[in-house]
């Protein structure tokens, strides 16, 4: 991790109100090249709202900087080239072919009337190779299993080759093996020089894979640091209302939730 380099994404005092009610309050955060950061918190804490604001999909007060420029000053296409966003649920409305779905990641780079350039095709190939989705190339995306669809959705987001990747619950409704596969892919994306922020509900997964964990509670970021600090049993009890223990796996401590308090 290059702590000296300026962050790829930096937010200061970001506040978002939805329908008059403040959902995210005074959030400060920075994402640096090479980092995989987990964003955790109970339902309704404001995680998705914060992520959508960081992606430029919601208007927020405060400052969000992308590579030294104010987010709101970027055109939608510039913003789309800088930040890839993977929403919840891996939605595909049309039974399109997998290769065409992944190629959608190149939308911010393509001009409206030409097809994919050589650069676009190479990026699509790299994203499909990284996610091992080449075998599905000609398949219709709606015929794939949940885990396969998650990999295709991730390939689509990776194909943009944006420096920042924001992933909202990328492991939701996946079996244990695919959860590990997806987390591993996110970590690889970060190691290649990107910054990845992932909303997770599985605290064990967050602690095992993330370089840093941010905890949100009722609109505020209440902790931001290594998993051992951010996900201490005391904080888990306070934020999630769950009794947890920290267990040494040999590769570090991970929290195990035991019962509701």
């Amino acid at each position, binding site marked *: 991790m290059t702590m000296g380099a300026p962050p790829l994404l930096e937010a200061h005092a970001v506040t978002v109100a939805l329908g008059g009610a403040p959902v995210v309050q005074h959030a400060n955060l920075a994402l640096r090249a090479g980092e995989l950061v987990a964003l955790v918190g109970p339902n309704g804490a404001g995680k998705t709202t914060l992520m959508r604001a960081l992606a430029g999909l919601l208007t927020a007060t405060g400052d969000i900087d992308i590579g030294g420029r104010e987010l709101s000053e970027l*055109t939608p296409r510039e913003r789309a080239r800088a930040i890839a966003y993977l929403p919840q649920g891996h939605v595909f409305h049309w039974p399109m072919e997998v290769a065409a779905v992944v190629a959608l990641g190149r939308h911010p780079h*393509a001009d409206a009337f030409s097809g994919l350039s050589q650069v676009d095709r190479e990026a699509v190939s790299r994203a499909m190779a990284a996610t091992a989705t080449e075998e599905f190339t000609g398949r219709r995306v709606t015929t794939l299993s949940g885990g396969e669809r998650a990999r295709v959705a991730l390939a689509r987001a990776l194909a943009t080759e944006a420096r920042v990747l924001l992933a909202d619950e990328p492991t939701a409704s996946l079996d244990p093996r695919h959860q590990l596969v997806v987390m591993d892919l996110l970590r690889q994306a970060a190691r290649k020089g990107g910054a990845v922020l992932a909303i997770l509900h599985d605290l064990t997964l967050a602690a095992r894979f993330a370089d840093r964990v941010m905890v949100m509670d009722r609109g505020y970021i209440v902790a931001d640091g290594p998993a051992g600090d951010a996900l201490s049993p005391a904080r888990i009890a306070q934020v999630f209302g769950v009794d947890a223990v920290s267990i040494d796996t040999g590769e570090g401590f991970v929290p195990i939730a035991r019962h509701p308090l």
Partner: protein
Amino acid sequence: MEEAVNATGRKDIKLNMALAALVAALGVLSLTVGPAALSPRAVLAALIDGDGIPGIIVRDIRLPRTLLAGLIGATFGLAGAALQGLLRNPLAEPALFGAPQAAAAGAALVIAFGLAGATSFAVPLAGIAGTLLAIGSLLAIAGRRASLTVTMLAGLALASLAGAAIALILNLAPNPHVALEIAFWLLGSLQDRSYDHLVIAVPFLIASWVMLGMNAGAFRALTLGEDAAASLGVDIERTRRAVVVGVAFGVGAAVAVAGSIGFVGLVAPHLVRRMVGSDPARVMLPAALTGAALLMAADIGVRLVPGPVEIKLGVVTALVGVPFFLAMIFSERRMLEGNPAS
């Protein structure tokens, strides 16, 4: 991967060329069909030199009708594909949202009260205004994350409202002959259409194609949902506005010259969707060509059926289109029951 993309491009070109050839063949056939028996050779000669009675029949009667059928059919095919792309739903169709009915109400108002002649620009403008109101209200009522049920119910209500408006106009029409004429025109027909009709419709149709076609990339991105599409740089609000205005221009102008014609926008994209990998962008051109072919074929059909009165084109498209719609509902039952169209 690269080969797959190139093969896709070649497949699309082949499909579009085949459909264009079909449209051209139907165009030639359409010029030869009519009460006056003219051989294909005589038709061709009349088309080129325009001499005598055959010249008038082919150039002034059959050619405008043929061109209008093709252009209007293409517009409906494209409008259907665009609405389906925006709403991410294969069952979206202008006629289900009251668009042609609203256009007819606008146009009928102008004609019934003698505000303007039937070949004045006021008629398509009134049609466009009616359609803008219908589609604009539909998207406003249904909102951004509306389920298919809400969208369809709102469309049903708007179609009924437009129908009531038409009934009121007929009811209050100052002249019973005008009322009868409007009632007949509402059934949808290309009989006795002239170059004047072409002139008032075509500028709006072309504007509609441009507005809808420019959003092909946005429709493709929308397959991932609105948030993901927006994150890819698509301006969702601008796309919605372009579809509302584009569909209004196309349907409004088409209905103003041809009366109420429905369901081409539902059938045409469906027929070609599988051939373009269900890609909402790639489906647009073949859907337009298929729409042109369908309406031209229907217009040839109504002229071939013997009888004292020509069957109206709008009647034929509804008679074919509605059972087709029912069949689509039947085959998509599981999707419709389980999955909101958010």
